[in-house]
């Protein structure tokens, strides 16, 4: 099995051309989730086969698989209750019929796709939050590039004035994406950097302003207060800002992600979630849990380190990729 994983790892590193197409999104997600799927599928297909009756043992085995995929105990139990109910209503008996039901129930938990749309008075402002090491800066680099390619003028604000060399890291991403970065002095007050950036964005008539913030653990009250302040400063400086508040969550994180989302949401109401690092063996089950338990829609997923590896989250594709039966990789 390890050999398989390495093969996949190799593939995901092969440099390919930009401009992702629709199919390649699916394939990429599929190959990104290949290890997940290999495990989920090999486990699931072992369980769900013609001739095996649907019984409690089977249900428990499915529960086990879902928990191992970081879906979380509560979400798993909810999901399985729904599945049991559906099985009863439809009068299903054979386990091979269960896959469709499972997919449908996961889809229900995932809610509607809510893609990010640039609307409202310019500049459209996006505030990016998350714990340390979640992948905020990288995500911003990818987002900037994406908007730039879409023909928008983009400005990025270096709101992380705490971590050593954070602004330098962002500067390199901005250079790659071909967008301008507004940065304050060393240890400058983040809210003031953001305030200046909004004025700069207005002055330059930029379409989009993306605001980076320092990573912070949600348990640090003063740091969460600082975040609320950034939010307040933004809305004072520009009507409707922040238009979009994206919480970046590391895809390898476990149940703690729910706590993160909850508390960040209290500091600044979140409009969407970005799940990063889904190109590893992490199962991405947290995507389902976050959506189900917080109602905060997942808007993007990160599948690698390349600029184009940030994709719109599409729930049907996500579930299909999760359950696709054969690895016809890109």
């Amino acid at each position, binding site marked *: 099995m390890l050999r398989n994983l390495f093969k996949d790892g190799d593939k995901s590193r092969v440099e390919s051309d930009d401009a992702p197409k629709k199919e390649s999104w699916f394939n990429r997600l599929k190959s990104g989730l290949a290890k997940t799927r290999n495990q989920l599928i090999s486990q699931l297909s072992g369980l769900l086969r013609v001739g095996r009756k649907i019984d409690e043992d089977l249900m428990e085995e499915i529960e086990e698989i879902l928990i191992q995929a970081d879906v979380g105990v509560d979400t798993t139990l909810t999901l399985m209750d729904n599945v049991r109910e559906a099985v009863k209503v439809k009068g299903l008996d054979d386990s091979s019929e269960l896959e469709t039901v499972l997919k449908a129930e996961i889809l229900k938990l995932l809610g509607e796709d809510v893609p990010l749309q640039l609307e409202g008075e310019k500049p459209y402002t996006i505030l990016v939050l998350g714990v*340390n090491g979640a992948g905020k800066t990288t995500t911003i680099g990818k987002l900037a590039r994406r908007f730039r390619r879409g023909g928008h003028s983009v400005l990025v604000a270096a709101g992380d004035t705490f971590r050593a060399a954070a602004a330098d890291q962002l500067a390199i991403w901005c250079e790659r994406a071909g967008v301008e970065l507004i940065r304050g002095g060393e240890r400058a007050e983040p809210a003031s950097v953001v305030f200046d950036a909004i004025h700069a964005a207005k002055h330059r008539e930029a379409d989009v302003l993306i605001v980076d913030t320092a990573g912070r653990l949600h348990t640090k009250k003063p740091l969460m207060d600082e975040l609320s302040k950034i939010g307040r400063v933004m809305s004072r400086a520009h009507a409707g800002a922040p238009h979009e508040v994206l919480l970046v969550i590391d895809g390898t994180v476990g149940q*703690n992600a729910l706590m993160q989302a909850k508390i960040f949401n209290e500091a600044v109401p979140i409009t969407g979630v970005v799940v990063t690092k889904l190109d590893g063996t992490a199962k991405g089950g947290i995507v389902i849990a976050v959506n189900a338990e917080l109602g905060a829609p997942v808007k993007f997923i990160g599948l690698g380190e390349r600029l184009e590896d940030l994709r719109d989250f599409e729930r049907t594709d996500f579930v299909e990729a999760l359950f696709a039966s054969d690895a016809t990789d890109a």
Partner: protein
Amino acid sequence: MFENLSDRLQNTLKKLRGQGRLTESNVSDSLREVRRAFLEADVSYKVTREFIERIKTRSLGQEVMGSLTPELQIARIIGEELTQLMGNHAEKIRVAPSGPTVVMLVGLQGAGKTTVAAKLALKFRKEGRSPMLVAADVYRPAAIKQLQVLGEQTGTPVFSMGTDVSPVKIAEAAVKEALTRAHNCVIIDTAGRLHVDAALMGELQRIKATVSPTEILLVVDAMTGQDAVNVAENFNNDLDIDGAILTKMDGDARGGAALSIRYITQKPIKFISVGEKIEAAALEEFHPERMASRILGQGDFQTLLEKAEEVFSEDEAKALERKLTENKGLDFNDFLTQLEQIKNMGPLDQLMDLIPFKNQLPVKNLEPDENHLKYAKSIIQSMTPAERRNPPLLDRSRKLRIAKGSGTTVNQVNTLVSQLRMMNRMLNQQAAMAVPELGPKMGSLPRPKRKARKSRKRKRRKSR
């Protein structure tokens, strides 16, 4: 940290209270709860299952002691198993028998390697060693710059060769450089990488083969979910790691990763890293038995004691002791000294985690707030020397003056006055119960309420 897990375990144990003895049915009821607590704490599914199995066997087996209540029996078994699961005793970083000690840090992106590297450098310096940091992350933008800034902050030289040289070459050159410059520790900060990325894992293997590190430490985010097992397993298979460092332990992650990693790799957790600030105390040695005690909500008195001993001077302790034996009670000067000392022990919320039976304290939902310390300090500093020595002096007009002077309210002043009174009352009660072994150092620390704890503490103190 571990809060939710320990809350859950304690609730489970509480349910066993009043039960006459352990039976098949009350054990399996409790264990179902424990299982769920473990899974919600992100302990790997497989580890959870085996852990529960072991506890079940032991609880129903012969070794149950007749004199203990079922609650305590299970708590004891869980505590022992947890300790064993995490590896029984603390393991330190090894020192190379000859030449520089080379520590290589590896892990996923965003785990916290660079921050840990700087904390480790500072720790080595405090121990009188001469570390050198090596910037071997040539991939992440500005990673080298970050290490350089941190190196400057900690006064540690940083070896770098830019981003165009292969990390293998950088590591090789760095160790040579360390030899000529007489650095006895080399800390290699490698780039974050996926454990399934064959090319990049191969690079680590080549670094290992070239510089033969004394220690290869896997840096893992404490918030990692079920995937922690895969990550640890792959890194261990490819590199035969020597141990792990858990980061971001100041969050509310339930720390299941710690249990899984140890179990799967059989390699020790060597440090836990708390806080973003680069300070030596932010890298704590990992003590399995203390951690088990924290998980069971019994606090970690040993660490609290050590932290206290670091900041309380002998003289201060003696002066305090004299006061207590003379039954004089504490005044605001003592209070102020203690506030300073507590502040020196580290962030309040982290100290709170160490307090034994915290959840059973009469005050619920203790929300530690550093600001309270600040207010208390400015209130005391707005008092006259006479007022500080003689708290009963404080009447309404004095309190009003103090409130104005310290930018607080009379209410806040009153609260502080009654806190002092309460503390004195508690101390008197303790003195009446006479536990001289505890010594004066503990006077300022919240004490556990139960007798059972006292005897245990005594034992610990003696054994040290």
